[in-house]
């Protein structure tokens, strides 16, 4: 049955597509978005690791404490991951804007030499 291994396959698929986007990109902003796609593949992987069959969300506000829940630790890791993604994207985008200001272009092919 394929479903037990489908999330891992989806994570690998998204990772490879993100890499493809970075390698064949002609625009720095497009490249930055492909880095974000790469990061989402790790969320799929972490989600699949923590999932428990028949488990529900790890919030005990309205369910008794003993019920089966999925792993909360992996979700805490994913929260940190999303915050780090936001921080990294902000900095990467500001660097792209600065590169455009100094070099006049956002094509990585034309930005090959250092302008320092």
């Amino acid at each position: 049955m394929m479903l037990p291994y489908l999330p891992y396959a989806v994570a690998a698929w998204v990772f490879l597509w993100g890499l493809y986007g970075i390698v064949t990109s002609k625009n720095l902003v497009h490249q930055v978005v492909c880095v974000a796609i790469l990061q989402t593949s790790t969320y799929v992987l972490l989600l699949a690791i923590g999932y428990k069959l028949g488990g529900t969300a790890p919030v005990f506000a309205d369910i008794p404490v003993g019920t089966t829940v999925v792993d909360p630790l992996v979700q805490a890791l994913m929260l940190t991951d999303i915050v780090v993604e936001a921080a990294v994207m902000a900095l990467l985008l500001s660097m792209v804007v600065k590169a455009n200001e100094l070099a006049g272009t956002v094509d990585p092919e034309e930005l090959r030499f250092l302008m320092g």
Partner: protein
Amino acid sequence: MRLLQWVILLLVAGVAPAVVLSRDPKSQVVTLSFYGLICALMFFIFQAPDVALSQITIGAVMLPLMIMLALTKMRRQNLRREREGKK
């Protein structure tokens, strides 16, 4: 439940190449926002509501916003450069 998980995983696997293959950043912003929403849906289906909230706010709102702001700033820089190049 298993059908839903199948469907959402295949949807994620289908939308990610669409984001990568939209080469123009202006159209990639829209696909990225949609991808963020689909990922948040996947987090809900796999019983992770905290992470889904985070993903909606960051991946579907803040990240496309920052990209659009960066594109606007770059457009202004290009316009100014053209103006000074013409003088």
